[in-house]
C-alpha cells in the first residue's frame, strides 16, 4: 500500500497514528514506513511538533474548596430529596390522600354517589310519606319544599360523593356481616329467620354486584374477591329461603355455614370492615 518514500500515507493516517487510533496491522505498516522513509518521518515530526509542541493549554488548579463545595451541594441535595420523600410518605398516609386514592379507584364515583343519594331520597320520601300520612302537617305545604335530587347530586363535589359511596359500602358490609353472622350462629329457626330477611338479602345481592364490579374494574382485587364470595353465599341464602322443605333448608344452610368457615369469610369481612372504617369513614 505504501511506497518507500511514504507518499501514499495521508495526513489523516498520520493523525490517527499519532492518536493511536489505527488498527494494529495499519499501525505496524505505517511504523515500518516511518523507519524507511525520511520524507514521511519529516511529515510526522512536523505533525507531532504542531500537536505536542504548539497546542497546549495551561490549566490553573481549582480552588482548594472545590471538592468541599461539591460535597456541600450533594449533602443539600440529599437532605432535600429525603425531605421530599418523607413529605410524600406523610401525604400518602394522610386520610385525605387515602380518600383521593379511593377516588382513583372509582372514576364513576360521582354517578354512584348521585345514585346512592337519589335512592336514599326516594326511600326517605317513601317513609316520610307513610309517616306524614298519620299526622297533620304543622307547616304550610310550600315550606316543605324539597330540592330536586338531580340538583342536589349536581352540587356534590367529588369528595362528598366519595364519602357517600364509602359510607354506603361500609353499611353494605355491616349488613352483610349481620346476615352471615346469623347463619354462622345458627340459633333458633334459621330457615324462618332467613325467610323474614328475604327482601334484605335480595337488596344486598343487587348492591353487592355493583360494588364488586366497581372494585374489580378499579383494581381492588382483594375487595372484589371478598364481595364475590359473599355474593355466592347471599344468592344461595336467597334461594334457600324460598324452599319449602325445612329439612332441605337446614341441610343447605349447614353447607353454607361450613363453606363460610372454610373460607374464613366472616373473619375476612371483619378485617375489611375495620380497615375500611379506619381508612375512610
Amino acid at each position: 500500500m505504501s511506497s518507500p518514500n511514504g507518499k501514499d500515507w495521508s495526513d489523516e493516517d498520520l493523525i490517527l497514528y499519532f492518536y493511536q487510533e489505527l488498527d494494529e496491522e495499519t499501525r505496524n505498516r505505517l511504523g515500518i514506513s516511518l523507519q524507511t522513509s525520511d520524507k514521511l518521518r519529516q511529515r510526522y515530526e512536523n505533525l507531532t511538533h504542531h500537536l505536542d509542541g504548539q497546542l497546549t493549554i495551561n490549566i490553573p488548579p481549582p480552588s482548594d474548596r472545590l471538592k468541599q463545595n461539591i460535597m456541600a451541594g450533594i449533602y443539600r441535595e440529599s437532605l432535600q430529596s429525603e425531605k421530599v420523600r418523607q413529605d410524600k410518605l406523610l401525604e400518602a398516609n394522610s386520610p385525605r390522600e387515602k380518600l383521593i386514592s379511593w377516588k382513583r379507584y372509582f372514576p364513576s364515583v360521582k354517578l354512584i354517589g348521585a345514585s346512592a343519594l337519589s335512592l336514599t331520597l326516594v326511600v326517605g320520601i317513601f317513609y316520610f310519606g307513610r309517616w306524614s300520612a298519620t299526622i297533620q302537617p304543622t307547616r304550610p305545604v310550600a315550606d316543605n319544599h324539597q330540592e330536586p335530587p338531580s340538583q342536589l347530586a349536581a352540587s356534590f363535589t367529588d369528595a362528598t360523593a366519595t364519602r357517600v359511596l364509602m359510607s354506603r359500602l361500609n353499611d353494605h358490609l355491616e349488613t352483610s356481616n349481620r346476615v352471615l353472622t346469623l347463619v354462622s350462629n345458627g340459633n333458633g329457626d334459621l330457615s324462618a329467620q332467613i325467610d323474614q330477611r328475604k327482601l334484605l338479602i335480595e337488596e344486598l345481592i343487587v348492591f353487592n354486584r355493583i360494588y364488586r364490579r366497581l372494585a374489580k374494574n378499579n383494581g381492588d382485587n382483594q375487595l372484589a374477591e371478598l364481595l364475590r364470595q359473599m355474593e355466592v353465599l347471599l344468592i344461595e341464602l336467597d334461594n334457600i329461603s324460598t324452599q319449602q322443605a325445612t329439612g332441605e333448608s337446614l341441610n343447605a344452610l349447614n353447607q353454607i355455614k361450613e363453606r363460610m368457615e372454610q373460607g374464613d369469610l366472616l373473619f375476612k369481612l371483619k378485617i375489611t370492615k375495620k380497615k375500611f372504617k379506619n381508612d375512610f369513614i
Partner: protein
Amino acid sequence: MESEKQLIAQVKIGNIQAFQELVDTYSHKLYSAAYRILGDRAHAEDCIQEVFLKIYRKIDSFDDRSKFSTWLYSITVNTAIDMQRSMARHQHTQPLETSVIEKTESKHQETPEAEHWQRDLSKLTQKALAELSEDLRMAFLLKHFDGRSIEEISQILEINPNTVKNRIFRAVNQLKKLMSLNLSVSEVIPYE
C-alpha cells in the same frame, strides 16, 4: 479502595461516602475538561459542581454496562456547552486573553523564559481553539487533551465515529493554519 462498579452500586443505594470517593477520583479530570471548554476557572468550578449534582441525581439511570468515565464526560461536556451558550447569550464571558493569562499558573517549576513561552502558547492555543466551530472544538478537545478514544467521543457527542474522525482531521488542519498566523513563520514548521 473499592472497585468503581462497587462504588457506583453504593452510590445508587444512597451511600454519600461512596459518592465522595467518586468526587475524589474524577473532580480534577472533569474540572480540566470543563476549563478547556469554558476557559475560566470560576466558570469551570461552577460547571463541575453542577455536573456532580447531575451525576448524583441521575446515577440510577446509569447503565452498568457502559463505561462510567464516558458517561461522566458526556454530562460534563453537555453542561459546559450549555453554560458557554448561556454565557454567550448574556455576554458575560471574559475575553480569553484576560481570563486565561491572568489566572493561569504553571504546574512545573520552569525558567521564567520557558514559563513565559508556555503561557504565550497557551494563550495562542486558546485563541485558536476559540475560532474553531463548537463541533470541531469539542471533538478535538476530547481527543487531544482528554485522551478519549474515537469510540468514546462518538458516544459522548452522540455522533458517528467517522464523523468524529472527520472533525478531528478538520480541527487539526484549521488549528495548524490558525497557529501559523499567530506564531512567526520561523516558529511554525509545516509538516507537509
